[in-house]
């Protein structure tokens, strides 16, 4: 085999995988969005009917809002926490190694197991979270006399619970930001010290601009992922409720519409909306990143 042929052969499995398992299915989904299909009889062309129905479909609106709110809160919170951890733990010191390992642990737990853990932690009566919150108070009230959050039985606490769960699994972001911080040149920090910069100024004028490209890319990736990571907790922990649909995110909505109600065409139309949203989010963040770069990096 010639060199070129050998290289092509090495690329072939991946190229075939991408075509067969990603691009062809994605194209098929876009096509399915214009059909009505129950996975038994052949798909029937319905044109824009699915998209028109989505426009006025209450559960879809709810799922869309839930997903957007989740992304708007969870992504910045996860990035801020991961960055904080990376800056705190990038230098060796007492208990730093232990803290790094402990911060990584929740990320290693399989999603379902992790969901079941929080299902118990958040149990309003028997769960440790509310037991901790009611320490010092009587009659199941907190020390300041309020009712503790009814985590998995009220809409807002249930949504908060899903976000809290997601904040603990930042291991990947943490590791990548740790690596990004460790390659920053020490000279820049010495220079900042010479200039007499305070800690906040060093962070804002030195560290943040230097890690911004990495942070920007991670923000992109996390936004895309945020449309998916909410699936397992919503299914395992809150079952999409309570009440009806309070924690049904787009991923769970698509799954239920397609695989439980067998409306694959309608589910595909909802997926196309997710695709467009993802593309818009990516474009917006790309643009912001470009502007930020042009301001700070000559």
């Amino acid at each position, binding site marked *: *085999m010639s*060199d*070129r042929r*050998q*290289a092509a052969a*090495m*690329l072939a*499995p*991946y190229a075939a*995988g*991408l075509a*067969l*398992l*990603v*691009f062809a*299915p*994605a194209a*098929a*989904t876009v096509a*399915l969005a214009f059909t009505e299909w129950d996975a038994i009889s052949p798909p029937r062309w319905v044109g824009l009917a699915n998209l028109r129905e989505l426009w006025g479909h209450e559960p879809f609106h709810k799922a869309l809002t839930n997903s957007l709110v989740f992304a708007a809160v969870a992504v910045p919170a996860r990035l801020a926490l991961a960055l904080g951890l990376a800056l*705190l733990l990038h230098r060796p*010191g*007492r*208990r*730093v190694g232990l*803290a790094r390992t*402990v911060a990584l*642990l*929740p990320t*290693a*737990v*399989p*999603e*379902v*197991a992790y969901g*079941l*853990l929080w*299902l*118990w*932690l958040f*149990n309003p009566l*028997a769960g*440790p979270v509310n037991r901790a919150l009611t320490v010092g108070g009587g009659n199941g009230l907190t020390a300041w006399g309020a009712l503790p959050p009814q985590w998995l039985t009220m809409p807002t606490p249930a949504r908060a619970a899903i976000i809290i769960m997601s904040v603990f699994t930042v291991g990947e972001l943490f590791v990548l930001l740790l690596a990004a911080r460790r390659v920053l040149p020490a000279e820049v920090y*010495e220079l900042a*010290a*010479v200039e*007499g910069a305070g800690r906040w100024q*060093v962070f804002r004028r030195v560290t943040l601009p230097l890690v911004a490209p990495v942070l920007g890319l991670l923000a992109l*990736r996390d936004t*895309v992922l945020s449309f*998916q990571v909410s699936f397992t907790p919503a299914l395992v922990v809150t079952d999409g409720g309570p009440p009806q649909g309070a924690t049904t995110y787009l991923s769970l909505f698509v*799954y239920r519409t*397609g695989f439980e109600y067998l409306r*694959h065409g309608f*589910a*595909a139309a909802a*997926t196309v909306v*997710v695709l467009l949203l*993802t593309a818009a989010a*990516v474009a917006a963040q790309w643009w912001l990143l470009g502007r930020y770069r042009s301001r700070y990096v000559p």
Partner: protein
Amino acid sequence: MERHTTRGPAATRRAVAPVRRRRRPPPDIRRHAITAVLLAFGPPLLLLLSASLRPPGLPPPAAPPLLPTHVTLAAYAEALGIGGLGRAALNSLAVCLVAVPVSVLVAAWAGFATTRLPRRAAQGVVLLSLTALMVPATALLVPRFALYRALHLTDTLVPLMAPALIATSPLYPLVYYVAFRAVPADLYETARLAGFGPWRTWWRVAMPLVRPVTVALATFTFVLTWSNFLDPLLYVYDRDHFTLPVALRSLSTLDPTDFPVFLAGAVLATLPALLVFAAAQWYMRGRTGSSEGTVT
């Protein structure tokens, strides 16, 4: 000392003193922050372990003491017995044994082949991989389902191994691509002069140099494959073919109030992932230790 001569002596005199004082946060704040990290991230998993050691049938008392008074493995026996977690663990293991090596191979081949492509084509591969990363998982479910059904692969373990063909995540071939590009060009040149084709260069020259990358990616691939929940949920219906995450989920729906039993199952599902993480970390630590030793 050498660094002093590269800059003006006046500048260094000013620089040296304040550096230590200003750059580092006061040790107290830092120490407290580290304690806070330990206190925030540690308890969930400790509670998981302690709750799984309680007798089944009772909800675990939530208040301290953290350690159960009657430590028992009964919940584990029940999880393995009723939940069929043993069988499920074997299925998960079978999937991982096939999917993880294949996935890492696909990623390494693709990454290496990309370094051999003309610039334009390499950019094309990178762009396609990034695009694939952006495609939401829900966009792929239904057509993949139709594909597997047409090939009579539903209710087998094959759909769970199939993501190995895209290297589990299209990010991983890109990681290999970056790593292989960082290998000094004269090493590749030497290999070419020795008459090595791409295949042998990849195996004999490139792979040994990026072993930490391989270890890291194999770890991530294992954890992702081991925890995969959505695929078996959609493509596997027969209990005999359940993998650990699906079996765990069905165990928890069996009796949602019997916390010790499904938390014991959660511990069982978590242990292999933690072991693989620990092994990888141990490998990395040994490696960085030795390389530092040889360099300095």
